[in-house]
Structure formats: structure tokens, C-alpha cells
């Protein structure tokens, strides 16, 4: 009972962090929310994996946040350039996030019958993360935002996949993918920096 309650609290935390990632413009807040997101993900994964393996997700997630944070810290503080094609208001993004939550809420019961061995909080949490990540990717072209969006999508997928596959090799490969994505993002951020400075 307590586990179920804490799991739903973790889903709530995922909702807050993924929506926060969508709304905030400050990279420090974004990375803090990303780190918190991995904490909630860790709790959900812990239901299916032993503590040691689940901790890999948490440690990897925090390493990812740290790698991006350290890179961003070394870059000059510049205002994020406005996106060209999309409405940029917070209200719009909040509305879009609301739609994603509605879709996740309505899809969870149906998917529960398809994937019977996955608990509803894990399904709901992973759907929210994947949906928010895809939404994030859809409304931005900035490198940092794209990397955060991809990490969110992957976090959602990994939460769900942990319930289906417990192979150590897959866990290791997915951890390398997360770290690689962070490093690729860090590389792209540093490549973009001098051009932004001269612009």
C-alpha cells in the first residue's frame, strides 16, 4: 500500500519536473528538474529491478545532469534566442502539457491490459515522460532544449522497459546511451558557443 502511494507520488514528481522542464527558461532550474526527474524514475524502476541496478539509472541521470551543467557553466550567459515558428507563451506550453497529461491518463488503463505485468504508476509515469519529451522536441530547435527533450523521452522509455527487460547488458547499454547523449549535447553546446558570441 505504502509502495503504491509513494509510486503515485513519484508520478506526481515526474509530472512536476517534466512540466517544469517545458516551462522554465533558466538552465540551472532545468538541470535541477532533470536530476529530480531521475530520482522519481529511480523509485519506479526499483519496483522491478534490484537496488543496485536501479541505482545505476539514478547515478547515470545525475552524471548526465552534472556533465551538461558543468559544460553550460563554462559558457557565457546569453539569453535563449526566440523560437521562430511556435507560440512561445508559458500559457501555451502549459496547455500543451495538459493535453499530454490527458492523453497519458486516458491511455494508461488501455495499456495496462496490453502490458499486464507493469503497474499503473509505472505506465502513467513513463507515458507522461515520453509525451512531455516529445512535446519538448516538437517546440524547440535549441541544442540544450533538444538534449533535455531526448533525455526525457529516454527516461520515460527506460522506466517502462525496466519492467519488461532486466538484462544487465541492456541496462549498461542504455546508461551509455544516456551518458553519450549528454556528452554529445555538451559538445554541441560548446561548438555553438563561439558562433553565438560572435553573432
Amino acid at each position, binding site marked *: 500500500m505504502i509502495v503504491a502511494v509513494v509510486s503515485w507520488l513519484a508520478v506526481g514528481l515526474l509530472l512536476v519536473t517534466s512540466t517544469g522542464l517545458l516551462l522554465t527558461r533558466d538552465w540551472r532550474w532545468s538541470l535541477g528538474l532533470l536530476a529530480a526527474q531521475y530520482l522519481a524514475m529511480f523509485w519506479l524502476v526499483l519496483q522491478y529491478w534490484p537496488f543496485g541496478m536501479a541505482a545505476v539509472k539514478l547515478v547515470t541521470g545525475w552524471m548526465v545532469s552534472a556533465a551538461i551543467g558543468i559544460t553550460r557553466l563554462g559558457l557565457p550567459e546569453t539569453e535563449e534566442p526566440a523560437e521562430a515558428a511556435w507560440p512561445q507563451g508559458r500559457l501555451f506550453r502549459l496547455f500543451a502539457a495538459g493535453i499530454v497529461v490527458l492523453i497519458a491518463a486516458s491511455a494508461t488503463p488501455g495499456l495496462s491490459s496490453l502490458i499486464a505485468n507493469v503497474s499503473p504508476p509505472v505506465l502513467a509515469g513513463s507515458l507522461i515522460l515520453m509525451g512531455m519529451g516529445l512535446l519538448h522536441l516538437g517546440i524547440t530547435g535549441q541544442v540544450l532544449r*533538444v538534449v533535455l527533450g531526448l533525455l526525457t523521452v529516454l527516461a520515460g522509455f527506460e522506466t517502462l522497459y525496466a519492467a519488461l527487460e532486466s*538484462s544487465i547488458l541492456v541496462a549498461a547499454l542504455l546508461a551509455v546511451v544516456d551518458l*553519450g*547523449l549528454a556528452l554529445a549535447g555538451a559538445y*554541441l553546446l560548446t561548438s555553438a558557443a563561439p558562433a553565438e558570441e560572435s553573432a
Partner: protein
Amino acid sequence: MTAPFLWIGIPILASPLALILRRERAVTIFGGLTTAILALVALFIPIDVAMLIGPLSLKISPSVQILGRSLSLDQANGSLLAILYGLAALWFFGAEAAGAARRLVPFGLGILGLLVASIAVQPFLFAAPMIQIAALLTVPLLVQPSRAPGRGIVRFLIYQTLAMPFILFAGWLLAGVEASPGDLELAVQSAAMLGLGFAFLLAVFPLYNWIPMLLEEASPYAVGFLLWCFPATTSFFLLGFLDRYTFLRTSPAFLTALQTGGLLMVVTGGIWAAFQRHIGRMMGYAAVAETGFFLVAASLNTSAGLQTIFLQLVPRGLGMAVWALALTVVQPQVEGFGFSEVRGLARRNPLAVAALILAHLSVVGFPLLAGFPVRLALWEGLARQSIGQAAWMLVGLLGLLTGAVRTLAVAVMADEQSAWEWNAAWVQVFMLGVGILALFGLGLFPQVIQPFLVNLPAMFEHLGR
């Protein structure tokens, strides 16, 4: 000695070593020789067969265990390894002529090692994260430090990353289909997931917009390498799925979707190439059409179709290498790759332009060139199933041919008074010359690659039988 250590471990270990080397020529020789030796070993030393060399007994074991799963490369993989590493040697030796060795060789070795690992991993489903890691390694290869990344690289990263969850989840669903073959709904859902995953991975219509974008923003040679090695290996991943799951292989709906997707790529790639005014993007659309040809061949689901896929391996790698090298050689002589900027280029660098046009015509399947036997075989196979579909393939080929003719027309459009020049270093002349000769050689004597292809069908238990 194990096969995975030889063909996966050594390239991955050689990758950071190549980063240490500072001179362009040293890196080229290091990368070229490493891959050439690996190709020769794959060609001449059988896997899992004991060989006596004097008093020594040598045997390459086929598999190795890693974290509870295995990496396995058996005798059937030998020819594929020889082709992949042989073509990689060509790319790496050409990297000096392209001035790209210090980036291409270190990252290329790592990418190649990971892509071979994706072929070797058992269960084969776990290839998806390995391909994703290889895709992440392409980022420093494609984006130069202190140059802002463009939209192409960002889209490439997004699409490749989205492919992995779809494929892994489809694999899980497919295991369910195997357990309950009568569940039609589950079969449709898994096939749809798999289709989406491979649409992202292979840049299937309409998800290929990053290819022409990337050719505008990055080195054509680096992008060419990417457009060769990823489809060459991920296509085997798709074939692995078709081989493993009977319902996919025998589903008319899935095969029709595969064929329609392939023809859409051939037709749209051809049409965009016909109206293209940028010779870099033109190569991108040709690469799109090449992937379309692969999908069409896979959809035939016959042994002839499978042979066509194998037959396509070498001409595609060779053509792409010559085309990318030619573009890189002419790059310093033009302000951009737009038609207005390359006008009269044939007088300034006739050899590179000739190589570019011949590589383009090879993709079209022009007689006497490397692509001709492949296109002919595919067209014949398709025509046996449907004349209408064969006609659509012709539309795509005509589009590509129009692109080649327009490029040629623009390249020779020079003032009468302008003199012929020879703006190429000897190493560029040598590599382009070898490439042109090889394009003609494979077109005139396609049977020379037959010994490499004869064992490849053994990689698949059911496909094409």
C-alpha cells in the same frame, strides 16, 4: 583469440590511438592499414576452424560472453566483415585526399566497431542501443569545433534516438506474438512499432529531411561515410527481424508497406534530385534513393531479392566514397555547392567532376558502371511481381538521371576562353582515379565480387528460402 575481439575490440581500441596521432598521413595509414588487415583476416582466416601454422595451432573462436549476453561472429559473417572493413579501408585511405583523416579515422573506427557489434550481439534485438551509441559518436565527426551545429545534425540526433525505443519495444511485443501467434491485434501493433523504429533508423520517407540538410552544413566526406556505414549495417538488422519472425516475412501487408516505402524513397529521391540546384544535396537524395532500393529488394522476399541486397553492398560503398571524395576535392575551389557557384567547374577540376558524374550515374544504374548490374537485377525482380511498381522505379531512376545530366551541363558551362586547369594533389588524383577505375571495373566484371557474396545468405536461416 576471439572473432568479436578481432573485429569489434580492435577497431574500438584503435579509435583513441588514432586520436593521438597528429599527422594527417600517419592517421590515414594507421586507419587504412588496420581496416585493410582486418578485411584480409576476415577473408582468408576461417572463424571457428583450427589452422596449423608450423608448430602453432590457431583458431578464432566465434563468440564471447559480455554481461550475460553473447557477441557472436561465425563463418557466415566472414564475407560481410571482409566487405565492411575493405570498404572502410577505402574510405580511410581516401580521407587524406579529402583532408578529413584526423576526424574520420578515429571516430570512423569506433563507429565501425560498434556497428559490427550490432551485427554480432545476441539476442540481435540489443543491436538498437549499439547503433544509437554509434550515432552519438558521429556528432564530433560531423560538427567541427567552434562551428555552430545546424538543423541537420540536431534532427539526425533526434531521429536516431527515437528509433531505439520503438525497436526495443517492438522486439518485446514480437516476443508476445511468438507466444500467441493468433493475436492479430498484437501482431499489427508490433509491426507498426517496428516500422516506425526502422523508419527513423533508415531515414525512410518522410523522415529523411536531415540528409540534405547535413550535406549543406558538414563535410561531404564525413556525411558520405555516415550515409554508407549506417544503412549498410542497419539493413542487416532489419533483415534479422524478417528472418527471425515468420509472420513479418509472410505478411503481405508488411511486405507491401516495405515496398511502398522503398518506392516512395526512390521516386521522391529521384524527383528532388531532378529539381535540385545544389550538388551536395543531390548526393543526399541519391543516398535516399539507395536506401529505397534496399527496401524494395527486401520486400521482394525471394532469394533473388536477398542476392540483390548483397550485390548492392559494394557498389553503394564505392559509389558513395567516390562521390563524397569528389565533392570534398572541389570544395576549396568553389564558394558553395549551388549551381551558380559550380558553373564551369569541369574546366577547373576535370577529374573530380568526372568522378562526381560517374558516381552519380552509377547510382542511376548507367550501363558499364558498378550500379548497373544491381539496378538491372532489382528492376527485373520487381517487374516479375508488378509492372506498375517497376514503372515507378523507372520514374525515380529517370529523376536521378536528370539530376546527373543537369550537374554535367552546369559543370561544363564555362567561357570558351577559360583555360583547362588541374587543381588536384597527386593523392587526390590517385584516389579519384582508382575510384573511377573501380566503378568501371565493377560494372564490366560484376562477377569479381561474387566470391564475397556467396556465403552471405548463410547469415539468415529462413530469409530468401
